[in-house]
């Protein structure tokens, strides 16, 4: 270890503030013999450090990624994918209020709303473009209905960046709270207009805002599959 004996602490006053400073020591050698001997010792000490790790295979920190999937721990807060939160009935909280859309710094969220049966605003499509998302978590933070979350599924690499446009809502229609007021399950199912998540090349216009706004219908890209590429 580098000799810390000669290091002195000192009180100085700079700009009216009292502070303690430590002066950096200089590497010093006294005589030729000491220099040679000290140099050899320092080299040997360094070699001992590397030898210590070489001789202890337990110090290896490499994790072999695809093999360690089972015990790979991803912290629950890790931000890998934006998701709508669904409850056990498959219902979400999103009202289509567009706060996340407005707050998103790089326009990677496009919320398309519609008038529902009750006349209230409802979510039609929640389009999220992962390819331009910076995972800043602002959308999750600002959501007043706690409808969004960042999930841990980090393995989302694809060969075509157009595949990185996701539609997050599985159905278009009322929120979880609105559904609670509806008694009959038939009505509930009727109100849920199916929306499949995009899993094929997506027309970029949806997310870029060309076809945004209520009433603008976008053909569901269900005719195209991943194999078409």
């Amino acid at each position: 270890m580098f000799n810390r004996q000669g290091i002195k602490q000192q009180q100085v006053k700079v700009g009216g503030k009292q502070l303690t400073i430590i002066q950096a020591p200089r590497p010093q050698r006294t005589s030729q013999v000491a220099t040679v001997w000290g140099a050899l010792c320092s080299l040997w000490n360094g070699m001992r450090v590397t030898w210590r790790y070489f001789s202890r295979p337990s110090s290896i920190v490499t994790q072999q990624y695809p093999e360690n999937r089972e015990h790979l721990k991803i912290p629950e807060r890790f931000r890998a994918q934006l998701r709508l939160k669904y409850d056990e009935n498959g219902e979400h909280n999103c009202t289509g209020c567009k706060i996340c859309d407005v707050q998103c710094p790089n326009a990677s969220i496009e919320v398309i709303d519609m008038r529902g049966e009750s006349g209230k605003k409802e979510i039609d499509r929640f389009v999220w473009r992962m390819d331009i998302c910076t995972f800043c978590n602002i959308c999750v933070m600002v959501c007043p209905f706690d409808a969004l979350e960042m999930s841990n599924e980090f393995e989302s690499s694809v060969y075509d960046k157009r595949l990185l446009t996701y539609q997050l809502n599985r159905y278009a229609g009322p929120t979880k709270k609105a559904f609670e007021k509806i008694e009959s399950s038939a009505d509930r199912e009727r109100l849920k207009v199916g929306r499949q998540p995009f899993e094929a090349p997506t027309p970029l216009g949806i997310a870029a805002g060309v076809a945004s706004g209520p009433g603008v219908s976008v053909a569901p890209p269900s005719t195209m599959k991943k194999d078409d590429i």
Partner: protein
Amino acid sequence: MSLEIRTLSEIMNPPQTADSPLSTQEYFVNMGPQHPATHGVLRLVLKMDGETIREVIPVLGYIHRSIEKMAEYLHGRQIVHLTDRMDYLSALANNWAVSRAVETAMGVQTNPRIETIRTLICELQRVQSHQLWWGVLGLDLGALTSFFYGFRDREEITDILEETTGARLTMNYIQPGGLMFDLHPNFVPRVKAFIKYFRPKLDEYETLLSENVILQERLRNVGVLSAEDAIGYGATGPVLRASGIPLDLRKQQPYGVYDQVEFSVPVGTVGDCWDRYWIRIEEMRQSLGIIEQLIDNIPDGKFMEMKPAAKLKLPAGSFYLQIETARGSLGVFLQGTGEDIPHRCHFRSPNFNNLWSVTKTAVGGKIADLVAIVSTLDLVIPDVDR
């Protein structure tokens, strides 16, 4: 008064003059933008005489992403996430700098819990940044193993921060008005375990590199930056302190809870690469000390003082606030006009200002000296270019 605007190609291809037979031929070499020792896309045009450097011309802009222009269309909360991408090794300090500027402009007070967590987590990241720097310094000087040791220990902090902030590099954790999340319950025990783990490792760092005679010879009296030059060239942080000026914003203009913790400021005597090296090693120790003092004393309170989606209206006026990141003082200038989008947002990046001393210190040295100088300046090029 003449205003002659030249181009780089004119400088690199000067008009030919008749050489006297004794003079050696000077030639230009491009070090970068793709060069292993420039840590990114810095391009240094070197005018060389054999192995000796006669002139250094830094050429920037290879990773200029016009963050300042983008910030003119974004409000405070959104600007914060851009700053992650400037100095990505002290993303939290960058977040804090913008948040603090916005808070100051808006007159928002934050509670002690927020300030303590911010201080704590920024100190952790300072250690993390210096660990990476240490590893990369070894790499630059030819000792590849230190690179892996540095990254191995950095990973420990990255894991701790990832658990709390949800990201490993671009954290976007410190927000105007508070924090994005509260501390993770595992944070305190893991930080304690880390300090216990890292102190012996730090001694090992010193054995492996600091003590090594080759490293000492590579760094000692190389790239001497005098105090006047350091001030004149706008150097801050460890580079300025290595030149013998004990200027640390954490002491001079305490923010966070730095006024409640004890720590010393490591200061160099000569201003050479060795001083810059040693100061960063010592700063890691001091930062560990700060973390030790704070880790058991995190007060209770809210972690966010504002509504998450609150409009961040900047009053008319200019605000310039500084934060000591791992590389020096990061200044954030905000010009408000009463809107939530600033009229002008400017970042005084520490790396940009630290970089230019290389034009002075590297002259007369060898290429290997330049590598050592650039390495001890600890440049992060995305922060230089913004």
